[in-house]
């Protein structure tokens, strides 16, 4: 869109390259071994997809956020595993099982997301409170359905292939993540829905007066978040063979961290998919690097926080002004008050 390079994008690309270089040197090459690259690529999608959900909700403006993503992913996984196992055998009918599992997980996700959208659009609930409530609701339902223990997903071949298989050396789950990122990115940029979503996020009042169907946009947005949670459920089930209600309780804040570091405006109206993608990979690289160097996980949390602060600092504060003397004189703040105020 912009002729000049986006500073956020440049920052994220350099951070990714930098971490990769550092890690490769520090681990004496073991870090860029193909197995580790595949392992990291397979770890990114779970968090990356949840972050896309958070970004979509944030873009809608008016304090939009989705706190229920992880809970919904767990609920989708648990519900789908229980329901599909009751009707189909994973060993006898692996393909039917896989298709049914994926369909049910995404359907449950969609329903959960639409529920969020309806509550926010029609009851006018604040998104943060609404999704906090549904987060607890989804978790509660998952506990009741599963009885609080992990549920084994039948090990159907095609289902296991989704998160463990490779195409041309690239994990299938990573390919899915890339395709979804691309699709949603294009939708946001080129479809009327995407343009309306960002415009609504920028100024909801103006959007309403322009005749946008705000409720429909909100429901569609949160519905998309829900479907993404459903996809995450499939990936978790496929990779871990088991699903549980309390899996990934720490994911929510990390997903928000990814989103903020990607430069998505928390007040709505702006976000770039490529930045979400690079932000997710940067956190993964950093996290894996520390595990390669036997560093404590508290150091990892610290480094993530530092990265965020450096990022915010470089984005807010124009470092250029330190090196290059600007010739333009700021004038707007010293303008005289309008002459009309002289009357009295």
């Amino acid at each position, binding site marked *: 869109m912009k002729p000049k390079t986006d*500073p956020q994008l*440049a*920052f994220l690309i*350099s951070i990714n390259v*930098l971490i990769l*270089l*550092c890690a490769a*040197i*520090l*681990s*004496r090459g*073991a870090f860029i*071994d193909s*197995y*580790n690259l*595949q*392992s*990291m690529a*397979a*770890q990114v999608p*779970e968090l990356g997809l949840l972050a896309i959900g958070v970004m979509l909700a944030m873009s809608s403006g008016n304090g939009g956020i989705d706190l229920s993503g992880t809970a919904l992913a767990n609920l989708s996984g648990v519900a789908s595993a229980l329901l599909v196992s009751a009707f189909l055998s994973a060993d006898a009918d692996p393909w039917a099982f896989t298709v049914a599992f994926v369909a049910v997980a995404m359907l449950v996700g969609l329903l959960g997301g639409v529920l969020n959208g309806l509550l926010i659009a029609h009851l006018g609930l604040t998104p943060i409170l609404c999704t906090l409530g549904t987060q607890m609701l989804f978790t509660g339902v998952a506990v009741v359905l599963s009885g609080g*223990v*992990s549920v*084994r997903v039948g090990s159907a071949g095609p289902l296991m292939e989704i998160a*463990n298989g490779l195409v041309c050396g690239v994990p299938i789950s990573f390919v899915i993540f890339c395709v979804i990122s691309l699709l949603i990115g294009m939708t946001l940029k080129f479809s009327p829905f995407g343009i309306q979503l960002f415009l609504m996020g920028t100024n909801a009042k103006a959007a309403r007066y322009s005749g946008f169907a705000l409720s429909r946009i909100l429901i569609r947005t949160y519905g998309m978040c829900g479907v993404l949670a459903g996809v995450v459920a499939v990936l978790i089930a496929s*990779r*871990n*063979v*088991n699903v*549980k209600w*309390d*899996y*990934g*309780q*720490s*994911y929510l804040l990390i997903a928000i961290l990814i989103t903020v570091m990607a430069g998505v405006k928390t007040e709505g109206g702006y976000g770039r998919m490529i930045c979400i993608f690079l932000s997710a990979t940067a956190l993964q690289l950093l*996290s*894996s690097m520390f*595990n*390669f*160097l*036997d560093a*404590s*996980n*508290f150091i*990892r*949390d610290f480094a993530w926080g530092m990265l965020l602060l450096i990022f915010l600092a*470089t984005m807010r504060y124009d*470092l*250029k002004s330190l*090196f290059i003397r600007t010739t333009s004189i700021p004038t707007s703040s010293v303008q005289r008050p309008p002459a009309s105020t002289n009357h009295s």
Partner: protein
Amino acid sequence: MIHKVLFTAMAAACLSGASAGLQAQEKPVMATVVKISGIPWFDRMHVGVKEFAAATPSVTAFQNGPSNADAAQQLRIVEDLVARKVNTLAVVPMDPAVIEGVLKRAMDRGIVVVTHEADNQKNTNANIEAFDNADYGRALNEKLASCMGKQGKWTSFVGSLGSRTHIQWVDAGAENAKKYAGMTLVDAKNESFDDANRTYEKAKEILRKHPDLRGFQSSAGNDVIGIGRAIEEAGLQGKVCLVGTGLPNPSAKLLESGAISAIGFWDPKYAGIAMNKIAKLLLEKKPLTDGMNLEVKGYEKVSVKKGPGAGVLMVGNAMVIADKSNYKEYLF
């Protein structure tokens, strides 16, 4: 432009750090992954892993764990360690089911896997338990019986009726108490939910209902704190005995006052050493035989049976029953 400046500055910083990290790592790498870092129980295990590393200079051994109690975070650490191709992996799973997949990938990659506190783990070469649950329940009850003079009413607490090990402990205790005709079990298996306050309320109720109660056998880690407080407030130290699972540091005050007669536990330090010793034996392709000696306190005569998966299930005798006289040896 600014980013180039930033980039070069950070690259320089990293490269200077890199030279420090460039030491040769040809020795076998033995990783231990715990449920959570930074809590007393696993800090104590870390002491054991460090001791093992110091005593075994031929390997590099270290411990890591997630900074919050989330099975997904533990999973990510294990994923990275598998990718790094450490030689052995000792894991105390947050949730055994969640890491089955990654442990299978680890074993496929030729990594030796040893687990602890996961007797239902399928994808492991060996799972080591500190003690046999029935033995532990019997030992706690025996201590209680001797404190009560083998006479009088006693009751038992479990974390919840769903916690399998707790039920095994109190059932074995009840079985043991049958040996003594004078001991009567009343209102057995009260649920404490590992909450000291709730346990305190419940213990007060029971003391009111049975003024002649002489003993408590408890199971969850915080039970002794709650019951001990109830005993202390009623001024019943020395008249009512309390024996249960507990940790030395939190129980110290009540042990000193006599409200807690004895606590039972296992020392995570030795569990950490035992896991790594087993991993090293497996790495050296040595067999694990029934009754073997791991040369670790409490694991001198380890039973070896077939586990739920392809690996073995090993049980030591590492229980510790500590009272006022010796709890100071285990402060953690």
